[in-house]
């Protein structure tokens, strides 16, 4: 029998998970802190305070917070599972000319799966994170739900669309109700959790220098040949360095000038071509989403009006969803900029996270 008063919290060494652990303890939960070791970077090659999640210094930060809070603390190695479910897919997607969003897979397969299994194995009902999101239960829908956090600038629900009912049911996210990030930092300072003034980590936890191209090249034996830049009519404009260097909507770094701004419109891995066009060419109203998951209902039957966004950083925009076999056609009322295969399209109904899928 799992204890609903017991929770395992993933601690990254950052201020968010530190304060989340504190809040849970204050709320009376029996908290167990765990740092997940996901990636083994060559320790000699980067400075101790680079701050990448798996650096020794971030584990130490997490450990010190746990000591301060007087909660048990363990470090667990999920490296194999992480490579299998997140890293391999990341590399494959780039090689296919897509731009992946690995945090989505990490949430689905590691944070709310492997870590949840660990929580259960320790007798804890819940897994918790320092994510900005609000977990709840909607009686009318009879569904466990995730809503946008109060602190709109930090809302991370975009990354959570793929979570199942089982997963959400067992999740706690204590930071979702905070109005501002500053409030969170102030608690950390007040409680002397040393990471208060640490910067938020912005990059991928396993590509700490942000150089995705280097990472993909180092981890694949597949050749990444140069190819042709073409325009929307098929005329050859020049040579590109390899499809992994580019993403839809990109303007800078093309390596050639045309007299006017040119943008990446499409990446064609089969012919190894990158299509360039004007700014208008980068806008689309329709897209197909695959590997779709819905949270507020089970399956999409009739056309469904909601709001969607095609990247983490955009605002939501009205759209209609149509079922298509096991995929979803998304038609936005207004054309959206840089709809990028590999990224997620995520749907909302007001504050409620409805679901999402991967853009084809």
């Amino acid at each position: 029998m799992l204890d609903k008063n017991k929770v395992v919290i993933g601690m990254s060494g950052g201020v968010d998970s530190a304060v989340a652990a504190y809040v849970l303890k204050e709320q009376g939960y029996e908290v167990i802190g765990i740092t997940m070791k996901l990636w083994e970077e060559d320790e000699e090659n980067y400075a101790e305070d680079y701050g990448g999640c798996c650096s020794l210094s971030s584990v130490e930060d997490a450990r010190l917070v746990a000591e301060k809070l007087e909660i048990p603390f363990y470090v667990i190695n999920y490296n194999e599972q992480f490579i299998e479910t997140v890293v391999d897919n990341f590399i494959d997607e780039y090689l296919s000319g897509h731009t992946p969003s690995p945090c989505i897979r990490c949430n689905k397969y590691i944070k709310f799966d492997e870590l949840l299994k660990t929580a259960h194995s320790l007798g804890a009902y819940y897994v918790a994170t320092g994510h900005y999101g609000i977990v709840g239960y909607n009686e009318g829908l009879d569904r466990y739900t995730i809503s946008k956090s109060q602190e709109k600038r930090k809302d991370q629900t975009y990354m959570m669309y793929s979570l199942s009912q089982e997963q959400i049911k067992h999740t706690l996210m204590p930071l979702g109700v905070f109005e501002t990030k500053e409030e969170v930092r102030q608690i950390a300072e007040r409680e002397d959790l040393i990471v208060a003034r640490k910067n938020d980590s912005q990059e991928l936890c396993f590509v700490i220098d942000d150089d995705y191209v280097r990472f993909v090249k180092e981890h694949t034996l597949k050749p990444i040949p140069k190819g042709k830049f073409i325009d929307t009519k098929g005329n050859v404009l020049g040579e590109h360095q390899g499809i992994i260097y580019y993403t839809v909507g990109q303007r800078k770094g093309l390596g050639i000038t045309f007299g006017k701004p040119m943008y990446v419109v499409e990446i064609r891995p089969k012919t190894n071509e990158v299509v360039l066009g004007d700014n208008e060419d980068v806008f689309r109203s329709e897209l197909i989403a695959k590997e779709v998951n819905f949270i507020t209902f089970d399956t999409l039957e009739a056309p469904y009006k909601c709001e969607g966004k095609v990247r983490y950083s955009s605002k939501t925009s009205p759209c209609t969803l149509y079922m298509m076999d096991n995929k979803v056609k998304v038609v936005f009322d207004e054309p959206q900029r840089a709809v990028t295969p590999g990224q997620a399209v995520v749907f909302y109904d007001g504050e409620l996270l409805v679901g999402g899928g991967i853009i084809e």
Partner: protein
Amino acid sequence: MNPIYLDYAASTPLKKEVLDKMLPHMTAHYGNASSIHSFGRKQNQTVDQSRRLLAKLINGSYDEIYFVSGGTEADNWALKGIAESYQEKGKHIIVSNIEHPAVLNTAKALEEKGYEITYLEADAEGLISLEALKEAIRKDTILVSIMFVNNEIGTIQDIKSIGQLCREREIIFHTDAVQAFGYINIDVKDLNIDLMSMSSHKIYGPTGIGGLYIRKGIKIKSLLDGGAQERKRRAGTHHVSGIVGFSEAAKLRYENLNALNDEMQKKRNYLLETLKKNIDIKVNGHINRHPGSLNILIKGIKGDTLLMNLDLAGIAVSAGSACSSGSINPSHVLLAIGLSKEEAKASIRMTIGDMTSYEELDYVVDKLTEIVTRLLK
């Protein structure tokens, strides 16, 4: 129940008599043992007495005992020192593949400097084959280093035969006796041991101190240069309180060796037998093992999960080795003796101490049974 400790192979608490012997040398007596004044002489006398005591315990001579900072320094010094001093003769060294990282990583460091290392393979129970050793020895072999008792599975090597073979072939023989010293009667002459690593904190003495036995006549380049301490071979002000604690701890164990070991073994066997009644377990290692050692495989569970559950229940045991960030890697020893990665990950090590009670063991059996049953559901 207070938290229960079953990880004596990792480290041990100080026995009261040990602390009593140490305290005056942290308070009333504080001179530098190398100083010529009375404060120094008093300390030096203590160091000398400890040295003689330890030498006697292993049938060595007092001038063959060298104090170091622990087992790791002893292993480093033995391998690097001999490698450096005998490189004219050759650059080939033989170790086993189940050595402690203090030996294995030192061997790897020597490999990077151009030495050739042969890693003898342990069998399924952790024993090194004498035949394999015979075949591995070459004209340019300068050192054989095989541990006396393995820290993970407790297997005791046939040091006598290995020592004899090395003596016949005139090759220097070092043994890491960190888990053996204090638990097994060791006569360095009878066993033909040339160098031997010993540690204090495995035998209820303080951390931060150990010993290296170096047979007279062996050349060995120093690891630490500086002052003239330890016959100019190992510089550094003597850690007198540590040294006297070390020798007292050794004395306490050896003066009562059979009784203490019998007790320990009885308790270990009790733990094993009662566990077997409740859980399906397999013992890793050889029947001829350290009296307190118990390494078991519990099919279907993950060792690190079991460890955490036990810790949350107030019971301390061990599994594998901790990486620098603290996550657990499967034991290289278990992998070396033929366990699969899954089996290695499903194993835990429990070690009994001189102060372990049957009450503690009963509690451990109950909790372990409860946890394993829940995890296997």
